[in-house]
């Protein structure tokens, strides 16, 4: 019995050892996939609002935007908009110069401004000109708007001369006495009126707009620069450079009448509202891709250089007040290719279909609405099927 059992045990353990040492598989393999019937597989389905006859609505609305934080200053006018610039300078002088000004030994020999062109809207052959006026009232860039401009106190006379306007640079001289007054005020506030800066106004003949770099807290060689040549006759001549410490551009324009199309306009704060009724989508789905496409009416659009080629899309919590959802710091960007803006808004659609947010529509605005005055006209919901906004959704459904 013992001998038999020992042999039996050895054979038994040998078989077990062979099995234990056999290769084990960790990863999924295709063996057995034949038994997965198509009806049980995950399916990628397409839902195209253009084909599905989805209820769609769109319009244009206006929302206040704060231009004081813009990185551009826009000056000029065209058929639908005019823009003004306000600049303020703070001049710091060396003690030796202060003494010379107090002793009336210094004079301003010449003063001019260089403003590098960073944005333009309108044909460069169209007329562009402006006047510069001394401001006589305090202003601030935080909440200044066109209504504030209407009550701003400034001198009627133009303190600029010898204006030179090219594609890349706007240069003009300032009446030296204007700047000398600022120097005197910075030395002794009783010697001259307070320095409130300059107002730039487009002339009535102007038909295009130019943009310049705005003050952005960091030293930037491209911001408008005031050159002041100080001279003590027969003793020395020195040029000091001064950059604005406060600036803003103020935009005024015609009201847009668009009962249905989406008109996005920089400067004025015109934005678009867009709503797709997605209640036809099934529940418990995963959005694999959702592309929003908007067609541009190029005949009604006015785009600048650089182009306003991006649209910001935000999720609305309320379609009437146009307030945003709590995660409005997240947004989607639509990019332009030809006459179509498109971009992925998968996460927004996923939130709607999962019931994480109620669908109150989307807000569309130009990504550069604070630094451009472009008008991008988007075909709205009442346009033909091929032109109206469309949402192509690819979703996964577990069967």
């Amino acid at each position: 019995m013992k001998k038999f059992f020992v042999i039996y045990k050895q054979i038994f353990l040998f078989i077990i050892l062979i099995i234990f040492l056999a290769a084990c598989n960790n990863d999924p393999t295709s063996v057995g996939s034949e038994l997965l019937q198509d009806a049980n597989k995950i399916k990628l389905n397409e839902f195209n609002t253009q084909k599905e006859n989805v209820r769609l609505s769109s319009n244009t609305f206006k929302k206040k935007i704060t231009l004081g934080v813009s990185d551009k200053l826009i000056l000029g006018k065209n058929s639908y908009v005019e823009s003004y610039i306000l600049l303020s300078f703070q001049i710091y002088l060396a003690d030796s110069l202060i003494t010379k000004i107090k002793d009336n030994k210094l004079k301003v020999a010449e003063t001019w401004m260089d403003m590098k062109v960073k944005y333009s809207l309108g044909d460069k052959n169209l007329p562009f000109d402006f006047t510069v006026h001394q401001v006589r009232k305090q202003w601030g860039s935080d909440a200044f708007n066109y209504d504030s401009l209407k009550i701003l106190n400034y001198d009627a006379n133009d303190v600029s001369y010898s204006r030179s306007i090219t594609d890349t640079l706007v240069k003009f001289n300032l009446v030296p006495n204007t700047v000398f007054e600022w120097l005197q005020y910075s030395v002794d506030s009783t010697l001259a009126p307070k320095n409130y800066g300059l107002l730039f106004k487009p002339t009535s003949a102007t038909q295009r707009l130019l943009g310049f770099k705005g003050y952005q807290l960091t030293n930037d060689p491209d911001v408008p620069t005031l050159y002041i040549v100080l001279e003590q006759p027969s003793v020395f001549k020195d040029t000091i450079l001064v950059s604005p410490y406060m600036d803003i551009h103020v935009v005024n324009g015609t009201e847009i009448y668009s009962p249905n199309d989406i008109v996005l306009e920089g400067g004025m704060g015109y934005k678009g509202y867009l709503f797709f009724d997605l209640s036809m989508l099934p529940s418990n789905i995963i959005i694999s891709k959702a592309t929003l496409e908007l067609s541009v009416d190029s005949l009604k659009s006015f785009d600048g250089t650089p182009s306003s080629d991006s649209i910001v899309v935000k999720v609305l919590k309320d379609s009437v007040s146009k307030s945003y959802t709590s995660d409005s710091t997240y947004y989607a960007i639509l990019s332009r290719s030809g006459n179509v803006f498109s971009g992925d808004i998968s996460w927004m659609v996923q939130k709607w279909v999962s019931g994480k947010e109620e669908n109150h529509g989307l807000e569309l605005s130009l990504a550069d609405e604070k630094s451009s005055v472009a008008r991008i006209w988007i075909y709205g919901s009442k346009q033909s099927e091929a032109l109206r906004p469309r949402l192509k959704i690819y979703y996964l459904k577990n069967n």
Partner: protein
Amino acid sequence: MKKFRKYILLLIILPNIIFASGGSIYSRFGLGDFYYSYSARRMGMGELGIASIDYDYLNFLNPASWSKLRLTRVETGIIYNGNNISSNSSSVYYSQTIFTGFMLGFPIDHQYGISLTAGLLPFSNVDYDVMTEENNDLTGSYKLTYSGKGGLSKAFIGLSYKLPFNFAIGASLDYYLGKIIHKSSIEFNSSSTYRDGSFSDEYSYNGIGFTAGLISSNLAQLFKLNDVKDLRIGLTYSSNSTIDADTVNNSTTIIGTLSNSSGKIKTKLPYRFGAGLSLQLSDYLIVADYLYQPFNQLTKDDKHINELKNLQKLSLGVEYRKSELKSHSYWEQVMLRGGLSYEKTQYHINNKSIDMIAVYTGFSLPIGLESTIDFAFQFGKRGTTANNLLKENIYKFSITLSLGEIWFIRQER
């Protein structure tokens, strides 16, 4: 008891350290593959043994078999399950090691055959992980992965009782519990603009049923079979059970994992009926059994599952055990077993039933008074590669500790 601790510790640790898991996609259907034997002792002789009445073993298929229990018993073990799965085009080897739960048996009254038994045992197992690569013009190539994990366990408590004329009956209250997760995911290639996603359906089950059993007296005397030491027939019946399942659907999306509770569904587990014969000839115990469960009656959320049909299993086993120990040597106490079975499994896929044939062998080594460490090995073939099905070579290896001790005896002073 101290000397068994190392074995128990080994059994607990082994499943956690050895093998990667995986299994057949057949377990995707219904509640998965079912366990008929959690112990090496029964596995070694064909898994069933419905009519077998044991004094040193806890048979979970038939509660009547506890009526001759001599000592308090504890049984636990592990099963290594290796599965070589082949399709028409390829094959893969998966393995899985599971802890087979435990059973406790307490003899209360030998005269009336009253024993109390309780336990927690694996009942069904779902384990598959399948991937397929597909392609379309819109998205390019992508991978679909389907996996399932989990299973049901059965917790039970039951009593046996000896009837007049030495018939034995027993019954247990069964509580089914467990979680089964089916997951499916899609993965696009890295350059695709489409986002991956995955769905998982989690079913948390719980439900109550009962099992009743009967084992006859020794019929050899009745039929005057002088060469037969013991002849018994046994019947067992597990009731229909309605098992509730809380269902949670999870989906992995661009905004995170979203959970959606879709409420309770009811799964109706059909009854199970078994009949067996046990025959003791000298030192040989021969058992023959039949098990039936109409899985075509299984419904999930009131829906029948097309891939499930009625299960039938036939098994035959033999155990060699010296009945009269002459020398009381260690080797005289060793038990040897063998068996075979044929099973028409519950799976019926692509218009073809999935059948299984298996052979078994095993042995028990004594490790003390009415305590053994049992080993068993099963080799089975299930299914076919015809009709796009799978053929499986199944290798199961089981180790069980069966410990008997005298408890509840008051020391005389």
